[in-house]
């Protein structure tokens, strides 16, 4: 190895290490502040306390917004899984012109600015006379979650060897049995990860939700945004830490089920 190569090699690892620290900084800061006793976000904290977690239940609108977010994310993920999964099957199995175009169309909301989608939905729903906040959010969030489902399931189904189903049929399975015993177990990891990422995308969304929330019905990111703007205190760090913990658990589940490497390469 020449000197140039060796120094380039060292530089790569130094920058990578610095990047990892940089990436984790906001998460570590949120967790540390949430356990600190200071309400001024002093770092390092002068002492430790659990009071921001105890206060969580008393913050107005927090638990109701969490409930709204979980409901919307669950409904949107379920609907996307159903119609997105069907579409992915058709695209992976069918032989028809324009397959790639349909796949690109189903993932295209990911390429468009979230605010633009939000405004388009706002004007269209208003024109259609749709006033219900909950229903508007659910309809819009299906559009947000479908790309994650369609993309992941399409690539997983393309890789799946469908002759296995014929083999199961030959060995005496009925068609529904072949699906439940062969297709679903093989594709379960893809369903799980696409579902988790779709759910998180919906839970985290602010760009679309911001146009549909009102004083009574808010999603969690919008409620948190209001709190950060109006009365920032470490309670927000406490909610953030709980969310970080939840996401970490889900990722470890993905790592066990599929391996994060496969997810990163998708």
């Amino acid at each position, binding site marked *: 190895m020449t000197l140039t190569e060796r120094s380039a090699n060292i530089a790569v690892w130094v920058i990578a290490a610095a990047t990892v620290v940089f990436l984790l900084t906001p998460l570590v800061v949120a967790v540390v502040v949430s356990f600190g006793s200071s309400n001024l976000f002093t770092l390092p904290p002068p002492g430790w306390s659990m009071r921001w977690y105890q206060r969580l239940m008393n913050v107005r609108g927090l638990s109701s917004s969490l409930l709204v977010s979980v409901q919307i994310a669950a409904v949107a993920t379920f609907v996307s899984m159903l119609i997105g999964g069907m579409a992915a099957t058709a695209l992976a199995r069918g032989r028809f012109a324009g397959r790639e175009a349909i796949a690109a169309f189903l993932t295209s909301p990911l*390429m468009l600015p979230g605010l633009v989608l939000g*405004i*388009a939905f706002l004007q269209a729903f208003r024109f259609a006379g749709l006033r219900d906040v909950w229903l508007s959010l659910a309809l819009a969030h299906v559009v947000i979650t479908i790309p994650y489902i369609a993309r992941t399931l399409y690539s997983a189904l393309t890789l799946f060897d469908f002759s296995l189903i014929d083999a199961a049929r030959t060995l005496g399975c009925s068609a529904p049995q072949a699906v439940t015993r062969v297709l679903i177990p093989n594709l379960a990891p893809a369903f799980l990860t696409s579902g988790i990422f779709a759910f998180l995308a919906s*839970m985290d969304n*602010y760009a679309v939700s911001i146009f549909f929330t009102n004083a009574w019905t808010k999603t969690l*990111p919008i409620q948190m945004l209001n709190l*950060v703007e109006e009365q920032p205190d470490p309670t927000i760090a406490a909610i953030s830490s709980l969310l970080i913990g939840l996401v970490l658990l889900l990722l470890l589940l993905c790592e066990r089920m599929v391996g994060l490497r496969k997810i990163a390469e998708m």
Partner: protein
Amino acid sequence: MTTKLRFDPVLLLAVPAAIYMVIVFAIPVLWLVARGFMDADGFTLSNYIKFLSEPFNWVVIGNTLRVAFWTTVVCLALGYPTAVALARSKGAVQVAMLIAIILPLSVGVVVKTFAWQIVLRRDGIVAALLVATGVWDEPKLLLFTEHGLVMGAANVFLPFMILPIYSVLKLADPNLQDAAATLGAPPVFRFFNVALPLAMPGIIGGVSIVFSLATSMYVIPSLLIGDRFQTLATLTGRAFLLMRNEALGATTATILLFLAVAIVACSALLSRGKGDSR
């Protein structure tokens, strides 16, 4: 092949999703664009002429593109070496790096931006670090500055740069580098003529995603720099949520949409050019 395209019944499975996306997604977006070009008399460009003849709006466009540019530069400078390291790493180190990249990606942007408000304070970590390394003589406030905004935005969008480059590097044959070395190519030549061209599709992908996300970010500038610094996206949000000036908001939203489509088109064109030359 002369196979006529016959009707394939499995196609029916795609119908619900296609209909849903046409009605709830495509028509509203096209309608938004169309309305920007229409008034009582029919086709018009007046909304855009009015918007572009306002000098302040050019400042807004400049702000948007400048911040997006620097965010992309920082993401590429940190993201490319990180992707290289990730592709070379194995076992526990690789899993740890992947968690460090995917965990922040899956945590909401409001959480991260809130934390950056703390990091960028006068007594925050970055100021302390810059004083300790002698870059600054005394701690300064980074919050409400463009530097702070670029730092926070780069932090949020970095995974979108690392992952596309990583997945391309993963597919590249590592023997190519060795082959070039065996044939006597010096390291710098190898970097520019072997390593970089191989990574190029991933770099094009990462750059276009990050630039696109950075032009349309809303929460990050609202919380990290505030109202006196407007971008197309913050102006769009304000027009709808505060000013109730929907004509302005629809105009800026359409400009954002055109920018996003132009970025996707450019990156598709660039990566196709790459594919042909090989």
